[in-house]
Every structure is written in structure tokens, then in C-alpha cells.
């Protein structure tokens, strides 16, 4: 194996991310010379376009390059471009473009360059974390997401609330990073390698799949560390406080990006709990699902129950983000079980599908709020949305689509996603069926409770008279962001098959 060749290949694979990061560096420097939000937003759209163009090159069309297959089976590059990575990279780029559109007019002229540069680095981090096949690369990629996020949190708003939000996010994030690293170090200590493929091979080949206790501890630590990113209970506490304190753009960013990276990392690192070719029910095959079962049930319930009483829209969406993380955790809980049986939709597949759906509907909802807010009269509470259907019928309709999707109403992405997740829980093999049916029941009850607070918003928009006039001049980037999200939400709900199949190919189950 020639290390030089290998390294060159790795660079090629990460070319879009390299372009994004280098451009971001240029933006940081050039931002001092020109302060115009339109200019920098256009530039970052262009850069994202360039990254997308590179990704569209034929080289990336064949995710499994024969060159990689030739290598020793348990020593693959630190970066792999499999279908999962490719799918998530596309999602990251589209998400990034939507976020750029969304924040186009939300950032001030003097901070635009820095803001967009941070955003580009974050997108690069998501792409990298999707490809990472090495614990260290994965960790670096996650930090590539976290550190610019701290900057953005501080950058956009400077009042006391925003500072408190940024400080809370920072401290808890660093703490969770510590937990994650602790878990990683145990994994390394166990197998003597940081390469995830080799790691998984090592763990799988331990006798009869009975992993040492230390691997379980590492599993718990990794889940705890990544739990922060995906806002799983009890690592979710920052979400409502931080979302409320920070700007709408940052809140949307926080609701979407860390979840993608977190679930990507979980799917990669925890691959060893869904056994490749092991018989069902050995060691981790039984314990990991229980762990995720508990986390999923707690996360959904806490998120939904706490959201019931909120009046602040950002807090509602924060708790909703917690609740939806809970739904997605169902997929992780069922994945090891469903891997053994010919399930219609595998757990991991449903998670990937839901991630995309959730991203579209949540970012869309935040974008609507941002679109209607002005610095003088921000949309903060449910009452502020009263009667929006009269003053902004189109935007209100799209907001209703997002909210119906969050509820899980048919013909929206949210329904399709929830359906696939719940279906998985109902399909688990007979020995575990009762347990997972209970989970599906908890999920259904949660979905019902969740409907309450989303409907309150819809009712306010459609059934009440405006309390105050919302007069914000229409801006096309914000509208475009909303429209893209709405289109994705509806398209995935009406015709989910393409993404479902892409997700199946990506996760392989």
C-alpha cells in the first residue's frame, strides 16, 4: 500500500469540502474590504454551487472506486465516499444553500462575510463528518461544525440573552465533546486503531460477538457525547434556552446541522451494534436497542410534554426539535433488530429519510418566522402570528404545510417519515415485538400530544384576527428559502420513493 497514493485519493474525495473551507478562509480575509450582505451571500451561494458541481463530477458518481476495494479489508482510508456519505453531502449542500438564502437579509452588512464563511465551514464539516471513517477525522469534522457555530452564536446578536445562549451552548457542547472523546479513547484503547472500519471488524470478530464491558462503556459515552448534538434527552437542555436567546437563523442552524452530523456519526460509529453477519441477539445486539429504546421514549415524551405549555415560538420549535430527535432514535433502536429480517424499511433508512424531512420542515418554519420578523417587531410568541393568513396568505399556507408536516399529517414529509419509523417498530421480530410495539404506542401518543401545540399555531394563523399589522417588505431570498423547504416537504410526502430508495442504498438495510 502506497501511502502517497492513498493520501492523494483522500484529498480528491474531500475536494468539495476543501473548496468550501479554502473559500471560507478567503471570505474571512476579504470580509474586511467589502461589507455588503448581498455580495457575500451571492458569493457563498456561488461557492456552494461550485462544491455541488464538483460533487456532480463523474468521479463521484461511482462511490465505490475499485482502487479502494483492492486494499486490505480492514484498513480503509480515513475518508470514505460511500452512498451514505454522498447522500448526506448532497443534503448538506442543499441545506447550506437554503440557510444562505434564509439568512441573506438577517445578517448585517458588516458581519455578512464572517457569517457566511462560518456557514461554509460548517457545511464542509457536515460533509466531512458524513465521510469520516476514522475517529480522529470524525472528531475534527464535528469540531469543524461546533467551533464556527460558537462564533455565529456570538456574532449575530449581542444582547444579554444571546450571550447567555452562546455561553450555555459553548459550555455544554465542550462538556459533551469531552464525553465523546472519552468514549473514543476507550474504543482506541480496546482495538488499538482509530480507523472505524478496522475498529468495527475488530469488535465484530471478538468471540461470539460477546464484546467486553469496556466496549459497552464506550458505547454509552459516545452516545452521551453525540446525544448533545442530536438533542436527545437528557442532553437537550440547552436547546430551548439557546434557541430562544439567539437569532432565528442560528436557531435553524442549530436545529438542523448538528442533527445531521450527529446521526451520521451515530450510524457510522455504532455500526458495530447492528451486526453485519452475526446471528441475532448477541451481546450488543440486545443492549444497544434497549439503550436507544429508553432514549427514544424519554426524548419524545419530554420534548412533547414540555412544548405543550410554551408560548414562545422558538421554544416550541426547540422542544419540537427534541421530540423529533426522539422519533428518529426509534430508527436507531429498531435498526439492529430489523437488520435480521426482511423489513420493508430498515431503521437506519428511516432515520436518514426522517433527517431530510425534518430538516426541510424545521428550517422552513424558522425561515417563515424570520421572514415575518423585523428587528423592531420580532415574531416571538404564538400571538404574534395571529391572523397572518390574511396579511400573508402564501407564507401562512407554507407555514401551515410545515406545521402539518411536523404533526405528521398525511401527504407531507413528516407523515411519510413517521410512518416509516413506526412501521419499523411494528415489524420487529416476534421475540422483541411487545417491547417495540410499546415504543410505537408511546410514539403514537406523543404524536397526538404534539399535534396540540402545532395546531395552536395554525389556529392562531388562520382562525384569529391580527393583533398587530405585520408589514415587512417582501424579500426574495427569504421567500425562496421557504419555498424550497415547502417544495421538499410536500414532494417527500407525496412521492417518498426516490429518497427512500436512496436511503436504503446508503444505509444498506
Amino acid at each position: 500500500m502506497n501511502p502517497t497514493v492513498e493520501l492523494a485519493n483522500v484529498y480528491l474525495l474531500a475536494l468539495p469540502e476543501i473548496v468550501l473551507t479554502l473559500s471560507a478562509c478567503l471570505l474571512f480575509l476579504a470580509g474586511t474590504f467589502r461589507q455588503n450582505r448581498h455580495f457575500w451571500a451571492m458569493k457563498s451561494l456561488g461557492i456552494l454551487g461550485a462544491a455541488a458541481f464538483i460533487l456532480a463530477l463523474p468521479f463521484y458518481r461511482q462511490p465505490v472506486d475499485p482502487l479502494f476495494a483492492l486494499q486490505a479489508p480492514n484498513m480503509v482510508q480515513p475518508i470514505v465516499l460511500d452512498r451514505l456519505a454522498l447522500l448526506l453531502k448532497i443534503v448538506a449542500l442543499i441545506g447550506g444553500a437554503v440557510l444562505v438564502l434564509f439568512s441573506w437579509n438577517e445578517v448585517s452588512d458588516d458581519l455578512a462575510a464572517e457569517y457566511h464563511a462560518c456557514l461554509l465551514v460548517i457545511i464542509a464539516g457536515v460533509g466531512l463528518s458524513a465521510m469520516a471513517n476514522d475517529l480522529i477525522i470524525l472528531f475534527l469534522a464535528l469540531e469543524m461544525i461546533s467551533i464556527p457555530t460558537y462564533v455565529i452564536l456570538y456574532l449575530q446578536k449581542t444582547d444579554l440573552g444571546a450571550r447567555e445562549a452562546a455561553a450555555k451552548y459553548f459550555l455544554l457542547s465542550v462538556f459533551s465533546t469531552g464525553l465523546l472523546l472519552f468514549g473514543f479513547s476507550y474504543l482506541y484503547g480496546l482495538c488499538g486503531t482509530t480507523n472505524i472500519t478496522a475498529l468495527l471488524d475488530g469488535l465484530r470478530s471478538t468471540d461470539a460477538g460477546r464484546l467486553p464491558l469496556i466496549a459497552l462503556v464506550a458505547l454509552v459515552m459516545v452516545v452521551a457525547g453525540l446525544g448533545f448534538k442530536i438533542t436527545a434527552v437528557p442532553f437537550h437542555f440547552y436547546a430551548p434556552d439557546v434557541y430562544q436567546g439567539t437569532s432565528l437563523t442560528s436557531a435553524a442552524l442549530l436545529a438542523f446541522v448538528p442533527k445531521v452530523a450527529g446521526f451520521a456519526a451515530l450510524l457510522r460509529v455504532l455500526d458495530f451494534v447492528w451486526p453485519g453477519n452475526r446471528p441475532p441477539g448477541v451481546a450488543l445486539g440486545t443492549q444497544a436497542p434497549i439503550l436507544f429504546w429508553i432514549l427514544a421514549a424519554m426524548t419524545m415524551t419530554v420534548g412533547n410534554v414540555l412544548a405543550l405549555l410554551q408560548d414562545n415560538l422558538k421554544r416550541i420549535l426547540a422542544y419540537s426539535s427534541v421530540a423529533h430527535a426522539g422519533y428518529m432514535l426509534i430508527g436507531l433502536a429498531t435498526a439492529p433488530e430489523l437488520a435480521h429480517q426482511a423489513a420493508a424499511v430498515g431503521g437506519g433508512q428511516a432515520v436518514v429519510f426522517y433527517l431530510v424531512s425534518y430538516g426541510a420542515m424545521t428550517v422552513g418554519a424558522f425561515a417563515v418566522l424570520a421572514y415575518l420578523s423585523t428587528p423592531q417587531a420580532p415574531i416571538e410568541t404564538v400571538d404574534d402570528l395571529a391572523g397572518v393568513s390574511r396579511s400573508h396568505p402564501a407564507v401562512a399556507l407554507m407555514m401551515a404545510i410545515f406545521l402539518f408536516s411536523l404533526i405528521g399529517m398525511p401527504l407531507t414529509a413528516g407523515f411519510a417519515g413517521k410512518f416509516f419509523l413506526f412501521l419499523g417498530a411494528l415489524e420487529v421480530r416476534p421475540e422483541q415485538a411487545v417491547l417495540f410495539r410499546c415504543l410505537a404506542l408511546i410514539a403514537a401518543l406523543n404524536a397526538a400530544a404534539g399535534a396540540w401545540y402545532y395546531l395552536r399555531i395554525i389556529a392562531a394563523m388562520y382562525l384569529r384576527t391580527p393583533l398587530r399589522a405585520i408589514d415587512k417588505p417582501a424579500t426574495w431570498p427569504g421567500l425562496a428559502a421557504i419555498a424550497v423547504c415547502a417544495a421538499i416537504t410536500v414532494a417527500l410526502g407525496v412521492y417518498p420513493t426516490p429518497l427512500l430508495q436512496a436511503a436504503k442504498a446508503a444505509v444498506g438495510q
Partner: protein
Amino acid sequence: MTAVLSGFVLALVAPGLYRRARAGAGWLLALLPLGLAGYFGSYTEAVAAGETVRASYSWAPALGVDLSFCLDGLSLLFALLITGIGALILIYAGGYLSGHPQLGRLYAFLLLFMASMLGLVLADNLLALFVFWELTSLSSYLLIGFDHERAEARAAALQALLVTGGGGLALLAGLLLLGQAGGSLELSVLLGQPHDLRGHPLYLPMLLLVLLGAFTKSAQFPFHFWLPGAMAAPTPISAYLHSATMVKAGVYLLARLHPLLGGTDAWHALVTGFGAATMLAGGLLAVTQTDLKRILAYSTVSALGTLVLLLGIGTSAAVTAALVFLLAHALYKGALFLVAGALDHETGTRDVRQLGGLWRTMPVTAAAAGLAALSLAGFAPFLSFIGKELVFEAVWAAPGAGFILAPAAVLAGALFVVTAGLTGVRPFWGAPRATPRPPHEAPLSLWLGPVLLAGSGLLFGLWPALVAAQLVSPAVTAVVGHPQHVLLALWHGFNLALALSGVSLVLGLALYLGWNAIRRASACLEPLLNRGPAMWYEVALRGLNRLAQGQTRLLQSGYLRYYLMIVLVATAGLTGATLVRRGRLASPVDWSGLSFYDAGLALLILLATAAAVLARSRLAAIAALGVVGYSVALVFVLFGAPDVAMTQFLVETLTVILFVLVFYHLPESPAVSHTLARLRDALLAAAVGVLMTGLVLLAGDVQYHPPISAYFAEHSLADAHGRNLVNVILVDFRGLDTLGEITVLAVAGVGVYALLKLRVGAQGHSAAGSTEVQPARTDAAPLEPEPGPVPAVNGAPQDGGLALANPAAEEGGGR
């Protein structure tokens, strides 16, 4: 498919059309349902001949979920009712709400509902059925809440949605189980397959879930309470959704699934039992009301109960009775609702006690009302008379339970008579009474619907053959599962059914005459009625709110330290549980290799930790922590890891310097927290400490690969040409690490310089960061003015310095 879609499309354009056409919009829009009715009507021949029309569009083929539709006898009957009545309602709504600013929206919601309802009865796929089912709940929510200025309407809308939507979720679960057990989600496949679901181990849960969905939708006892509440909707809506169509969706579902799930003991007991209870409860509640619409609502509940009861019996006679009764009920109840609306519209009140003698001023409405009331009471020669005869016959012949059910049915029939008198006779006859508005005849759009509906009830009664062969027979065939040929006749001869019919009529008339006495008697029952299911709904809702409040207070306090505390507890709990389960928390430790230095360092660390915890001033605590860090570094030195030790020294020095610099700017340490908080913190710290100890001991056990020192010793001279192992490690093997450390140091230096230069005078509260480093010490809750400690103006970047130290130390401990 096109039929369903056209409804949705028209719903979208309806508000625009209304803006253009104004008064004519209702008539114009009614053309669509009318056309659809014609379209479905054209299939009657084919369907009566036993054909089933199908259409299918793929949605998610991987799951076997397709958007497929089929039209058989049962669907056709419902489709005709939906479109036919729908057309009349659209016209009526135009007159009823003429000039209302939101009328366009009402049209849109109505068409949306109509399309969903059509989709529901035409769907061949269980999931598609569920999708449309929820869409009808949703459009019902929008329609009940149409009069959104009233809080009562909004609450009723929400109540209806929560009850039916919740039932819908149960239905989804039931349908999925059904699909799994039967191996397909296509109704036609399920109905056509030989093997029996009734013996399936999951039959009972399946049945219960499906029934829950159907019962909530069709307002069966004890879920009936949402339906009278739903009367907050404008009257045309009540007539259409909450009497003629939507509430019958549950009945449709029971009929549809009858061949699959029906016929077992559980089915008989549950469906018949709940049906009978609803029939009686609805009838009794109806006669105690005084509001026209509420009387009609409860009598609808009673009728729905009758339908469910009949489907529970499930014999082909019962099914025939159910379908005829359903058709008759849709016709007369729709008419009565529309009459009630017209009365409300023209006189300004719906209280039966204030209405009387209106036949003089509103003759056409009175005629329609009279026809509909006679029909409701079950007089010959109306279709409902035939229906009633069939009901009595079927109930009497019900296997095993006829002698209980027949009197119940007779009583319900009598109560129907009372209802008919109250709603169709009393307002129009007798002495005229003063009404809020001077009454006058309703316009054409308002009396057209009632007249047509009531008239067709009479028409079908006189010539039952009109519906028997073309509509009822195919529908009964679809429900029972094998071909049925139904003959309907007005005259059945002198038999038991006629006798029962007569008894119920006489009893009903007697009750009607004693209505005031009944109402007074029922007032005594008020407290009992107040404890009905509606109260439990309230209690549940309030309980949920209270739970949310409690949880919010408990969990989301806004204090960072509590968040961290919970995270720590959870992590320790999860990991600890794993360790304890494997019984590995206390593994034996080999003390033999312990040297004097080791013991000394360990003692030093312990002492320094105690000092840090007990120290009264911050600086002392920091100094003590520094001692801990340096001692740990010395441990690394002792165990031959000089590079790690080096790193630790640097980090430790930096941390102490940063701490000192930060704390220099902070106000004096706040008062030490009270004992209980300290005790709690101590417990938490101890738990985490024990856990970490356990983990470290565990890590020591594992030795999967040779120690790295051997590698360094072997390769130091050969690869790096250096004899001093430590030097080689620092500048070569771990060269990048060293560079990183130097960089960190440089950055920190710059940061320290900037801090010293800044020297902002503003002093804040104790920084949130200190909570993390010394959880045992800080609990400044009483001093903080508001939830969420706000860092000092220049405190935040410094917090970073503090916080970074913690994971680093942890990591060091983990190695």
C-alpha cells in the same frame, strides 16, 4: 381518482371564484358534486351487476403502498350520498351565510372535506384510507372552528379534532396490524384471500384499535360528547359533516371490515354493546335538550348507535336494515338540520321553547320539516318506515340477545318520535311566539335542500324498488361478502315488527306529550350528567397541562448547573447501570506493585482535592487544583510517559494562570451554599468519582495490543536517529503534538495579553463556568436575579478557558 382530485383542486380555487361570482358561487360550485353524483350514478348498473371499478397509482411501491381506489356497492352508496347532499349543502351555505366575509373559505373547506370523504370511501388501500380519514378530521376541525371569534367554537373544534384524531392514530395502529397479519394493505387483496384473520393471535388488539378509531369518529358512547360540541359549526356544516357523512365514516369502516373482522364473539359483544349503549344514551340525552341543533345532534348519536348495533349483529338482515336506515337517516336528518338552520336564520333563535306557529309565515319550510319529522318518527309511507321495520326485525332475530335488544330498539324508536315532534312539529304548530327577529319565509337556497331531501325520503318510501336493486343490494353484498338480493317493500304484513313499530309510536307520542315533565325530571340528573365523559376529557387535558407545567419547572430551570447536573447523573447512571449489570464495578485490584512514590502522590492528590473543596477563597482552591494536576503529571512521569506528562504540565500551568486572571476580575466569592445543596453536590461528585474510578480500573484490565513504549524503544534509533527516547518522542514521533501544544500556548498567551490590556471594569455575577469546574462549591442560586446566569461582560471567553480544562483533565485521567 379524478373525482377525488377534482374536489381538492376546486377547494383551492373556491375562494377566488367566490370573489368573482359572489352570490352565485354556491350554485356554481354545486355543479361539481352534482356532476360527480352523475358520474358515480353512471356506474350503478355495472356495480349492481357485481362489478368493482378499480384505479391504482403507485406511491411507495417498496412498501406496497399504492394510491388505489375501488368502487363497489358500499362505496357507491356513500359516494352518492356525499356528492348528492354535498351539492345541496353548497347551495344552502351560500344562502345561509350570504354576505359573510369568509364565505369563500367556507366553500374551500367544504370542498376539501368532500374530496377527503370521497377518498375515504373509495380508497382500496388501508393507508390511503387512513390518510383520507385524518383529512376529514382535519377539515372538520377547520369547519367547526369557522366561527373563530367565539372561544366556544375554537374549544369545540379542538375537542373534536383531539378525539377523532386520537382515535385515528389508534386506527392507524390497528390497520397496520391488520395489514401485517393479512400480508397486504390492499383491501381487495385482504377481502379476497382465503385465510382467516379472526384466528390470528393479534386479532383482539387489532379489533380493539380499529373499533377505537371507528367509535371516536362515529361518536359512540363514551366518545359521543364531541358531537354536540361540534354543533358550534355553522348549520350547513353540522348537517353535512356531523349528521350525513363524516360521522358515518366509522360506520363505513365497520361495514367495510366486517367480512374481515366481524362475526366473532368479541365483535358481537363489543360492537353490539357499545352500539346499544350509544343508541339509548343518545336518545335520552336528545329529549332533555332545548336547543334545536343539540336535540338533533344527540338524536344523530342515537342513530349512529343503532347503525353500529346492527353491524354488531352482523346477520344479512341486520346489514340490510343498517344500510336502509343509513340512507333514510341521511335524508331526513340532513333535512331537519337544514330546517333548524333556516329557523335560526329567519327567527334568530334555536330554542324550541321560543318557537311556535311558524307555519303561517314559513309554509314551505314547515312542509319540508313536517315531511322530515314524519320520516324521523318512522311513519309510513317513508323510507325510514321500511328501515325501522327492518331494524326491529333484525334486532329481534339477533342471535342470543334479541329479547334484550328489541325493547331497547323500541325505546330508542319512541325517543325518535319525541325528537321528531320537538324539531319538526313544535316550532311550526301551536300558538305563535315572540322571536328575536320577525319571522319570514326562507329564500329558495334555504328551502331547496330540505324539500329535496325530505321529498326523496317520501319518494323512496313509496317506490322502494328505486333503491333496492341498484343501491342497497350491491352494498349489502359488499358488506356481507356474498351476493345478496334485497327486496324492499312498504308493507310487510301484520308481523312482530309492525307491532313493535306501533308500540314505539304510541310510546313516543306519550313521551312527547309529557316532554316538559321529562325535562324537569332530567334536571335532577344534572350532576350525574356533568360527570360524563366530557368531564374526563377536561380532566385529562388539564392533567396534561399540569404535567407539562411540573416538568417544565423541574427540568427546564434555566440554570446551567442543573442542566450539567442532570447530564452527569444520566451519564453516570447509564454507564453505572451497565457496569453493575455485568457485576464489574468492583474488580479486585493488585496492590503488589505499589511503590512509595505512588502512594505518596496518591496521598498528595487526595489532600489537594480535599483542600480544593474546602477552600474558602477561590485562589486557594485554584492552587489546590494545580497541585492535583501536577501530581497527576508526576504519575505520568513515574509510569514512563514523559510526553504526556509534558503536555499535562503545560496545560496545568496554563489553566492555573487563566483561572487566576479570570478570578482576579470576578467579585468576591459568594456565600457558601447551604448544607443541603452541598450534600447533594457531594453525592453527585462522589457518584461521578466512583464511576470514573471504576472505568479506569476497567481500562487497566484490557490489554489488546502491545504497549507503545516498546515501539518507541525499538524505532527510536532506527527511524529517528536519536538516542534520547524522550527527545525523539517530543520532536519526532509526536512532533505534531508538540507543535500543537506550542500553538495553544501562544494563542493562550495572546489571549492573556488581550485580557490584561482590556481590563474592563464592569464586574458581573459569578461566572457560569465555575459551576462546571467545581460542582461541589458553587450554588449561587439565591443571588441570581433571574433564571439563567449571565456571564460577566468579559467573562465568556474566559469561561472557555475554564471549561476546556475539564475535558482535558478527564481525558488525561482516562488514558
